């Protein structure tokens, strides 16, 4: 996945926040709700760059374009995390987690939650294996 600029990410967030697709007017409304006022040319330009990068697609509804996210927020986050992990920790997830814990970015209760979550994933995986 190609890297996107801050403002492009802002636009993606408004679209994700709008249920994965939005009209230009909806994007403008949601941006101004967050006190971001961009010119039309900037918004359209950034949107078309996002289309080029493969994060959005458009389909015309009458004369208006509806922008739909091809990549969901989760997919974007995980791919960005992988990218970050590769870039900074050279793929070493343990290092990332220890940094998170050391810097108190991950609280003890969060950590317990994650452990439980991990356990259930493992159990599911074991019971699901025979079916393949």
């Amino acid at each position, binding site marked *: 996945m190609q890297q996107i*600029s*801050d*403002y492009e990410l802002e636009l993606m967030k408004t679209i994700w926040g709008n249920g994965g697709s939005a009209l230009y007017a909806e994007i403008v409304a949601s941006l101004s709700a967050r006190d971001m006022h*961009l*010119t*039309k*040319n*900037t918004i*359209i*330009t*950034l949107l*078309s*760059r996002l289309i080029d990068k493969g994060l959005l697609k458009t389909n015309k509804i009458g004369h208006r374009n509806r922008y739909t996210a091809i990549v969901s927020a989760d997919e974007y986050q995980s791919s960005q995390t992988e990218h970050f992990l590769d870039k900074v920790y050279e793929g070493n997830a343990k290092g990332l987690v220890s940094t998170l814990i050391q810097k108190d970015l991950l609280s003890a209760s969060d950590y317990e939650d994650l452990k439980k979550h991990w356990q259930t994933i493992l159990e599911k995986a074991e019971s699901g294996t025979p079916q393949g």
Partner: protein
Amino acid sequence: MIPCCLRKEHTINMTALMKLILSLSLSGSLLILLLLLFRPLYRNRLSKSWQYYIWIVVILRLLLPVTPETSLAGSLFSLEEMRGTDSTAAPESPNDQSMTAYNTIKHEAGSSDDLIRDATTAENSPSASAVSPDKEAYNEDHSQIFFFLWLTGALLLFVRKLTVYQSFVKYVDAGSRPLEDIGLLESFGHIMEQNRIKGAVDLYVNSLVSSPLLIGFLRPRIILPHTSLSESDFYYTALHELTHYRRRDMFYKWLSQLTVCLHWFNPCVYLMSREINRLCELSCDERVIATLSDNARKSYGTTLVNAVGAGGSYKDTLASVTLHESKELLKGRLNAIMQYKKCSKPIKFITLLVTGFLLGAATVLGAYAAPDSHTAADAADAPLSAAPSRSDYRIECEDTIYYIYVDGAGEADKPLSNVTNGFYKLVFVYKDRYSTFGSFRRKDMPNLVRNLESQCRTLLENGRISQEDVELYLLVAGDIQDAWSSSDGQSYSASADGFDHPDDNDDHNYNDDDFDYDFDYDYTYDFDDDRKDFDEYYLSDYLENRGLLEEYNENGIVTVKNDYYYQNTRIRILMDLRPDGSFENFDYNDRGTVDLRLVRDGSNKIIRIEYLPAEEAAGIIGDLYDTLSDTAEENITPRRSDVSTPAPSMNTEPAVVDLNRLTRAEVSDKVRKALDTCEDGRWYVIESDGCQYIYYNGLSHTYAYEPRITGSEKGDLITVSIVDIKSNSPLLARMKSANRYVLLAFCYTPADADAEYELTIEYNQTPVTYTEGHT
């Protein structure tokens, strides 16, 4: 023969097309020169925008083939055309002359003999041969070459421009990165909003481009060499490029490039293209500074200077819109910026006046309009507006032929013979030529105008007749049609001609003619088209249409894959004869074993099926193979001279016609020598040692033929009818490919030895004209 015909049609169009292109180029060039010549007068007085956009008038003149009725270029090219046809009026394509129902022939005394002699001498002296070839065809060949040269040049140039542009765009895009700086993007967005520029324009940075430029048709984008621009530089740069974008200058540039491609052979268009490119920048500057203060104008000039040398070396002067192109141009632009003054009212008025003048000039210059630009509707309406006066022509009816004497032509100018077989015809007789239209059936006559019009249309398109001719033809046809609708079809009858008048009460009189090969589909007047239809016309379809197969079935003859079977035996020869001896159908199949003759009664019902006697069958096959043609055996063509229409001369002693099919090997050396001088696709009658040889090169040897004698006061009228035999038999197919000519020896002994006779040749029911010659 068919490809030849197609080629001819195309070249006619090409001639017209080439004339059109040349006339457009000429008109456009005059406009270009006019504008360039008077440039010193207007360059500093009229607005740059006007100077820029006035070229649209020139481009439209160069591209659009619209023209007023009379225009300079149009009349110039038509004049050339008239001069061309004057000298080439006599020679027609031999094919068309002989084979179509329409003929324009010069028939001066002995001219046909001369033609043969000409052809003979041409063989000996190569220089003489330059006179005899059809000059029109010669011109057409040339225009064909020119057409392809032009097309190739235009395409090559266009493809080159396109690929150069595409690779430029590709290189620029490859080295570009999107401008991420939201501050710059936003100020750019604000510039667009301030200037109310709609649409979306992206911003990219590419350090390789020599100066800011705007590219992309679908997704326009401005490429900046770098982002370290001062605020004012960025502002003016953006404004300049956005002005290009707003004015759609790229489309204008490509339009001018397209014009250059189409008129690549014209040096003037390159001057035009250069002027447009120069003025594109000047007028863009003018537009930008129109709203600026004096100080701002100076800043704008500074931006232009700063842009020089700021970037890399990528440059495309072809179709992208750059901020600067050359130092000279930049100097001119800077001067223009500082000298800028708003247009005063009088200047605006003068601008309007000059524009009007140029529009008028563009219209008057016009273009060459091919004759086919006149629609059929024009032709139909024309007689009302420009009706030739009634005194210009005189109509006489002989038999089923209407002779219309035009421009004082008289009986002496009439074609020598015209046999119609019961079909109706219109012969327009001029002093030096005549035009024949037909054949029309009785049932066509009430719609004669419409029928004639369709025949005229193609001739008009081919440039063989003029619009005035058509007007006259349709006027006459209207008269005759009127006479028919008042059920007085023969009102122009001269009736002192000794011809039998057709029986008006008999709707099928042409069917009773003794040798009818009317296939019940419309013959068009164009022979070559007939041939095509004929070849494509599938045998079984044709028979089915006539209900023949069904009739055969009832009589125990079945068809399997185009082969006929009788009592489970394949039929070799199938002769289906009408009571008068003419063929209803004929088929030969060399895989068959039985030979049959079907005999029909007066109501054309099959009454008897009989086996052919062996010797008769052998005669037919021999004739087909052309090995026994010199013997006195029966031809496949029934001899009809004994039952033809009773004629006065028949009362004494029956005349004898001896008609035989020959191959070239069978004739004497001097006849063969004469045949060698004959052109292809043209009928000849060559006299040698008391015998006449009918010859046509370019037709299948598998024809049927029949002589027919009718009497007239002038003497015997002999019609030799030649008809293509259609058959799917492989033998005939082989024969078709083996010999492709008609050669008949024709010897006639009139009942009265001193009597004169006249010979008419018909091919597939249509009388053809032939050239006479002798050895």
